[in-house]
């Protein structure tokens, strides 16, 4: 035992290798390997007559993805929803995260962290179905809006083209509300973590040099929170892009990327098209991150 300890102490690279090889094997084969195996499928195509996968490299599936208006619609619909959800989550999360990281202390802070994480500890499906009831035509939200005498406003909202529908639970507005509820913790937590790391003396220095609180927020707090916002938005953005349960339980009949992947690899048996659809979120996230980097989102890291 002692000899082995000495051996690894004297040879730190062996120690590192021993430490890293098992997780790297797992990471490389199971984690990334299966992902690339799936993505490789997107370069095959399905034979329209036999419904068999033709295992020859081709871009036909991608051509199908970008030329068929129905498929383009699905991508645009999903991306629009993901952007709306991400922006809304960021706007709601910023004051909460600021309070949690900079003002709350002791019990209050613990309460907020538990409060933010609590919904994540329960089943995702239960929450989605619960939301469908909340948003239903006879549901508690419609009832409450009625009590406030705002039924007219709700009806006008639901009558608006594109985002409306017969009730909240079968409209894009309702779907949007559920997405925001579901992914909000994934925005708050990285944002709060980024703000926690900002030393208090930076805010004092800003005030000391003559900056009013709004200037300190704009010039110091926000730039230093941006890595957290970027991390959080990658979560909310990619989770919305890939989800298929919320759009199928709550919301309007239009397809989303996740649903399309589910349908294509399942009932339709078109694995190549499903794989091509899964590439879309990955590409979009890369585009998003490179834009964020260009705007200096990670300079403060």
């Amino acid at each position, binding site marked *: 035992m002692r000899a082995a300890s000495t051996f690894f102490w004297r040879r730190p690279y062996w120690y590192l290798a021993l430490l890293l090889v098992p997780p790297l094997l797992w990471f490389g084969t199971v984690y990334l390997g299966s992902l690339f195996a799936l993505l490789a499928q997107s370069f095959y195509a399905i034979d329209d007559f036999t419904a068999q996968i033709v295992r020859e490299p081709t871009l036909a599936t991608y051509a199908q993805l970008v030329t068929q208006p129905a498929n383009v619609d699905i991508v645009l619909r999903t991306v629009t929803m993901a952007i709306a959800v991400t922006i809304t989550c960021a706007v709601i999360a910023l004051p909460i995260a600021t309070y949690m990281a900079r003002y709350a202390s002791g019990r209050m802070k613990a309460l907020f962290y538990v409060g933010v994480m609590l919904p994540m500890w329960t089943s995702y499906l239960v929450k989605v179905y619960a939301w469908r009831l909340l948003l239903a035509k006879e549901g508690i939200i419609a009832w409450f809006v009625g009590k406030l005498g705002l039924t007219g406003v709700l009806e006008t909202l639901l009558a608006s083209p594109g985002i409306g529908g017969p009730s909240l639970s079968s409209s894009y507005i309702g779907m949007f509300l559920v997405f925001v509820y579901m992914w909000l913790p994934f925005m708050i937590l990285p944002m709060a973590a980024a703000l926690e790391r900002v030393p208090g*003396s930076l805010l004092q220095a800003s*005030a000391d040099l003559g900056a009013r609180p709004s200037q300190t927020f704009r010039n*110091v707090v926000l730039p230093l929170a941006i890595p957290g916002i970027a991390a959080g938005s990658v979560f909310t953005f990619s989770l919305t892009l890939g989800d298929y349960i919320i759009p199928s339980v709550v919301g309007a009949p239009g397809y989303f990327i996740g649903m399309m992947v589910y349908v294509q690899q399942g009932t339709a048996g078109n694995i190549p098209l499903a794989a091509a659809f899964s590439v879309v979120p990955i590409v979009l996230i890369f585009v998003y991150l490179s834009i964020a980097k260009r705007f200096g989102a990670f*300079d403060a890291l």
Partner: protein
Amino acid sequence: MTAAIEFRGVSRIYGEVRAVDDVSFVIEPGEFFAMLGPSGSGKTSCLRLVAGFDTPDRGQVLLDGADVSDVPPYDRNVNTVFQDYALFPHMTVLQNVAYGPRVRGIAQPEREQSAREMLELVQLAAQGGRRPSQLSGGQRQRVALARALINHPKVLLLDEPLGALDLKLREEMQIELKSLQKKLGITFVYVTHDQGEALSMADRVAVFNKGRIEQLAAPRELYLRPATAFVARFVGSANVASAALAAKLGAEARAFAVRAENITVHGESAATPADTISAPGAVVAVQFHGAASRWQIQLDSGEVWSALVPEDEARRLNGINVGARVRLCWPRGAGVALNEAPGA
């Protein structure tokens, strides 16, 4: 002339702790004023009250004759050099220095011009395009200084500004800060726990202990005539005798302090020089410091005193080692009478 800063009966209480306890003092314009004390003595709390990061629970803080107790930091003509420098990590050095004019709405070319002048003043003109993380500790310190001076404050607050630097750099910066203060003619309030720093730089020093000022005086006065046992020990590393011990030694029955350099060490059997007070004891430790050695001697009454023995004296004492019985002597006039019982 109106005082640059005035505290009138200021208290700041956190729960049970009186961080600042009924403190009053006046700082004149252009003065180099040091606040000296151990950690938790209230000196930094006083600085925060001047900067406006905190408000007093009782009393008033006046800047330039006006009560600013409720004025926020961004409306005070006071700037701070922070202990951790508090440079903005997402800005370049130039942007850091230009921050003050920027938030005051000065146009970019003008504020960058004055930021460049400030960087020249602290000899960092070439580093403007760098990030704070690319600078050394000493350079960051200078950037913090330039950033705090760019608004031309009437008062500059320095919170242990040299604490993170190594000894040689610290001594260089002490000289530089002092000459900068002379050149700019603005009031410096300098918080430190290092008595050497306070004594060598300040015009006047306020010694803080437990939220109160023990003594406020010029460095020489503080060193030569400490008012209390705390000041004698903290500032002069002096030996303090209680009134009881003084009576036993045949001096006036009043607490007094003797500085280590005024004490001579003699062998037990050696004759006591005339007109001196002497106390017997045993050597506990001898620390060599170069030009002199510090001897720790436990008196027969229990206290451990120290004597500073110059190198040529030490040769005379050759053969007296740790454990040996000795006699400590000091001239009758070297004892400084103290106001209160030691240990207070």
